[in-house]
């Protein structure tokens, strides 16, 4: 076997091995998407009811509370960026980080200081490489977040919201995560968690100014989508304020939990797609390598034949001249 042919064979073997790996990863990701989606669906009753309750308190009482009332002059905002721990998911983390950068720039242009909180090793690495400060970061659970994880993430954020701005507290809380739209589409979303927005007036306040990427319509929170709905006048026990105090952490936790789960589902979907195209590329490569190997083999055979024919005719010539003598 010629050197060239051997080289092609070797490459085909190596690409085939890679293809097996990417195919396996694709399958694993595909099965995880379903599981992650189911978990998102399982949390939605809780999140919906909680949002309703928050909306009810927000509309049914005129209590001043960081949960529902925007600060007159918001000076500091917290941004929670959700990325993944692992790569091999195409532009998944990069897109989320980009959306985070856009939001940070926008908030800074509005004259607010931005505290960044990061979930996922990819996001942490991005900020560490650029030597930019991160208030707090968490890693290790992005593939399979639990409610307890959401609580750990939410705790410092809630604490920051409740602190006075002068003492380093924040007035706003934004969250960037990747929404799972479908198997094929996952879009980075930005959402303002606090102050929560209800009703038409608040909705305008929650909407971002012009000049922001077209993902904005999605920024409207779940509560604003129900703007037509008139909520009944509730009786609060023990009092509206205390109910709000108790609601605030649960609301933030459940929103973060939902975002983490969606992000996990999106990550798996992105992995699946990336691995699928890797598998397709490997197949393509194998095909062209096989062609090249065939050509090389054929060239070798042709060469051998012409060598044999050439050799035979040389021998025949030699014997013919010998017999003539």
């Amino acid at each position, binding site marked *: 076997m010629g050197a060239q042919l051997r080289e092609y064979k070797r490459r085909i073997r190596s690409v085939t091995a890679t293809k097996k790996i990417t195919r396996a990863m694709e399958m694993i990701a595909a099965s995880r998407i379903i599981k992650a989606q189911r978990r998102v669906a399982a949390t939605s*009753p809780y999140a919906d*009811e909680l949002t309703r*309750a928050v909306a009810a308190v927000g509309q049914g009482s005129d209590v001043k509370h960081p949960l529902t009332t925007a600060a007159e002059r918001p000076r500091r905002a917290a941004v929670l960026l959700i990325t993944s721990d692992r790569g091999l998911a195409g532009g998944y983390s990069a897109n989320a980080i980009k959306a985070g950068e856009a939001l940070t720039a926008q908030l800074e242009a509005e004259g607010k200081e931005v505290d960044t909180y990061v979930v996922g090793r990819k996001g942490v690495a991005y900020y560490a490489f650029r030597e930019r400060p991160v208030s707090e970061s968490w890693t290790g659970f992005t593939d399979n977040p639990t409610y307890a994880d959401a609580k750990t993430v939410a705790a410092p954020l809630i604490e920051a919201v409740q602190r006075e701005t002068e003492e380093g507290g924040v007035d706003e809380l934004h969250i960037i995560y990747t929404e799972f739209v479908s198997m094929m589409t996952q879009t980075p979303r930005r959402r303002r968690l606090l102050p929560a927005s209800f009703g038409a007036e608040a909705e305008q306040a929650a909407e971002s100014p012009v000049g922001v990427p077209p993902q904005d319509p999605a920024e409207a929170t779940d509560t604003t989508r129900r703007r037509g709905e008139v909520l*009944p006048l509730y009786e609060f026990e023990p009092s509206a304020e205390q109910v709000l105090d108790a609601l605030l952490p*649960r609301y933030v936790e459940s929103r973060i939990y939902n975002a983490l789960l969606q992000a996990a589902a999106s990550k798996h979907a992105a992995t699946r797609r990336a691995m699928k195209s890797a598998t397709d590329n490997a197949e393509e490569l194998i095909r062209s390598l096989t062609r090249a190997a065939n050509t090389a083999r054929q060239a070798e055979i042709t060469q051998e034949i012409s060598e044999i024919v050439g050799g035979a005719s040389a021998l025949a010539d030699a014997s013919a001249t010998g017999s003539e003598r």
Partner: protein
Amino acid sequence: MAELHVELVAADRRVWSGEASLVVARTTAGDIGIMPGHQPLLAVMQSGAVIIRTAGESGQGTVVVAVHGGFLSYTDGKLSLLTEIAELSDEIDVERAERALEQARAEADADAERRADVRLRAAAAAR
């Protein structure tokens, strides 16, 4: 008799839903019983057993659930109980809860002790 629709949801799943004639829960201001036609209410629950007297489609009976904090909201014949952790009394492993209680007492872990205690009380109420 009128019925109220109950949705009992934990953070990660829907624990129980169905029709009921009376729901007794413990709020921060004391125990409260909710029957159909109650005024819209939003209350903070305390850890404890929630007793649901089922009726209508769900059949006559009692469902007891151990809840660990949360909220209840009632409007228009629909009662939502939101809680981070909820366990139906049938799901509670009494022996394990007892062990957990002892351990919590030994370690002076007030939270764990309360959780185990709530479980045991819910299991006892169901019997």
